């Protein structure tokens, strides 16, 4: 009895005992908080890693020009170590780990390279500087300035515009194809379909998301490409259109399930109210339920966009993978993601090509981040308007 009284007397009604009152709940709560924090941390760390690898290009320290100032290997000993390290483009750790002979060898390779370099004026160009990354340039042998991504050649060309256009083209086709279908299906399943049909259709569409993207890509490459070419009679069999349709198949279930959830969670009373003033089920679904579910539907589309921009395997397999600068959806194309996937394994670690792939990786990160942010903001506004808070 006495001890109980003591326990109670910590603050009024035990109020000041705080988390000591329910230690288990407190621990669980903090654990969940930590876990969610670690997810955020993970995303942040990935971003830091990708950005770090791309940093030399952002800072203008990377140089891909073939003709550079050459210091003969025999003069190695006269150079201070810091200069030598910078000349060879090594990090301090790398520099320390290499012995004298290796360093000499590296210098000789450099010398050889300079001898072999062509007298092409482009050989002096640093192709990873912003001028050449973003703007068209008239390379030797071209009769006009062009946007070109050609990382494997004597003069490596890293213009990212064709890749951005490629990604946009494929994404646009995918969204134009999948959003109307997915939203239509979501409206039908959530509002109009008889319950028994709903039980069949909904899992079937969601099953589509279980198809591995490589299988979809395979299907698009072998079956769909021939079929679409036969139907629309365009020249290149694999192109942005084909990849976009295949990508659309992959994002239909994403858009569908979120939109369907949003539509189903609209109170049934709206439907009843609409029917009671004499609207058909279709009119009610279109004019009342869909606007009421707009924030959720919008979220579905934004998520679909994110998935479409980030999807790799389907685009890699079905787009023809040629980095042609063209807005025509019937030209072969290459997306940002496919470029990274196809080329990263073959680059020189730490070289200009390697760094450029990380630059487009950062670009991808930023695009999806901004699209999600904008989506979130718009959703917030629409929600506020619907709920009468504005």
């Amino acid at each position, binding site marked *: 009895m006495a001890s109980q009284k003591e326990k109670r007397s910590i603050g009024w009604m035990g109020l000041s005992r705080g988390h000591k009152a329910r230690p288990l709940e407190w621990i669980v709560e903090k654990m969940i908080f930590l876990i969610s924090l670690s997810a955020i941390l993970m995303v942040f760390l990935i971003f830091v890693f990708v950005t770090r690898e791309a940093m030399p290009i952002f800072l203008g320290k990377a140089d891909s020009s073939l003709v550079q100032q050459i210091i003969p290997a025999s003069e190695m000993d006269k150079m201070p170590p810091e200069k030598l390290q910078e000349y060879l483009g090594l990090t301090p750790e790398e520099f320390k780990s290499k012995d004298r002979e290796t360093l000499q060898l590296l210098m000789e390779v450099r010398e050889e390279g300079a001898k072999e370099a062509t007298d092409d004026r482009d050989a002096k160009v640093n192709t990873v500087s912003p001028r050449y990354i973003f703007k068209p340039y008239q390379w030797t042998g071209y009769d006009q300035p062009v946007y070109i991504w050609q990382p494997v050649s004597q003069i490596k060309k890293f213009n990212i515009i064709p890749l951005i256009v490629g990604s946009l083209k494929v994404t646009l086709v995918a969204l134009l194809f999948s959003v109307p279908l997915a939203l239509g299906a979501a409206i039908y399943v959530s509002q109009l379909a*008889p*319950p028994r049909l709903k039980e069949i259709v909904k899992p079937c569409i969601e099953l589509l998301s279980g198809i591995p993207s490589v299988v979809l890509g395979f299907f698009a490459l072998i079956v769909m490409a021939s079929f679409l070419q036969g139907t629309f009679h365009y020249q290149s069999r694999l192109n942005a259109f084909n990849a976009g349709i295949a990508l659309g198949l992959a994002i239909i279930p994403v858009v569908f399930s979120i939109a369907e959830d949003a539509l189903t969670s609209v*109170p049934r*009373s*709206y439907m*009843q*109210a*609409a*029917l*009671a*003033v*004499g*609207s*058909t089920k279709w*009119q009610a679904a279109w*004019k*009342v339920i869909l*606007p*009421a579910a707009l924030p959720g539907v919008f979220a579905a589309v934004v998520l679909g966009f994110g998935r479409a921009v980030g999807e790799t395997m389907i685009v890699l397999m079905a787009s023809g993978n040629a980095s042609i600068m063209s807005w025509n959806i019937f030209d072969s194309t290459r997306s940002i993601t496919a470029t990274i996937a196809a080329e990263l394994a073959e680059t020189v670690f730490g070289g200009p090509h390697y760094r450029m792939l990380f630059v487009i990786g950062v670009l991808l990160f930023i695009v999806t981040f901004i699209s999600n942010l904008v989506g979130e903001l718009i959703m917030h506004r629409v929600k506020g*308007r*619907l*709920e*009468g*808070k*504005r």
Partner: protein
Amino acid sequence: MTESPIKSVVVKSSAPPAEASQTPFIEVENLSLHYGTTRALKNISLKLGEKVVTAFIGPSGCGKSTFLRCFNRMNDLIDSVHIDGVIKIGGQDIYEKQVDAIELRKRVGMVFQRSNPFPKSIYENVAYGLRLQGIKAKQEIEGRVERSLRDAALWDEVKDRLQSSALGLSGGQQQRLCIARAIAIRPEIILMDEPASALDPIATAKIEELILELKKDFTIIIVTHNMQQAARISDHTAFFYLGELIEFDRTHKVFTNPAKRQTEDYVTGRFG
């Protein structure tokens, strides 16, 4: 539910109350309704006159709301519902095959227990039904929105914020907006399913006042749990118990001199 303890008092065909004995506007003959195998309404027959307020009272689960929903065929939306019998409105059987439920609902409006304005602007809420009827002229819509809001005694409170969301209104205002939405399309009958049960006394008083006003233009059927409310606003009252119509007569008679024992027990508060 199928075996009723008071089967002996099934009213075969309630005589229409004296005042309504001109040609009845609504006639219900032997209406039965099943939810799957459960019989929710049993052989209900009654006749209602035009432009009167009829109240349906009875304990919870007695079928009065289900019965109300028969008049605009809202029960059609539930798959397991099966309906036998005849409901005639203006001489037309509304359950006949060629009757379009959508057109029927344009003539038989409904106000629900929980106010359910659309998440749109106040103006759009009222204009929705008008647009459904194919009215395109902006001026006509504006005029009818204003008139409906005036009829629903809401105009003065919302005239300066017609374009703001209806969900920003108070509960009572929302319910009057729902009434405005229902009367905007000028139905002949308005069904009200406990329209004031979620409201405070002041908002309730406004709704009741409104019903008495609307009675001049519309035939109103109201389901209510509040017996004082039924006594205050209705001309006729029907008392339901376990899916059966026990008594149907002038309100004054039902409350002061009921013919049936169950009715008396209920209106005096002995059960329910």
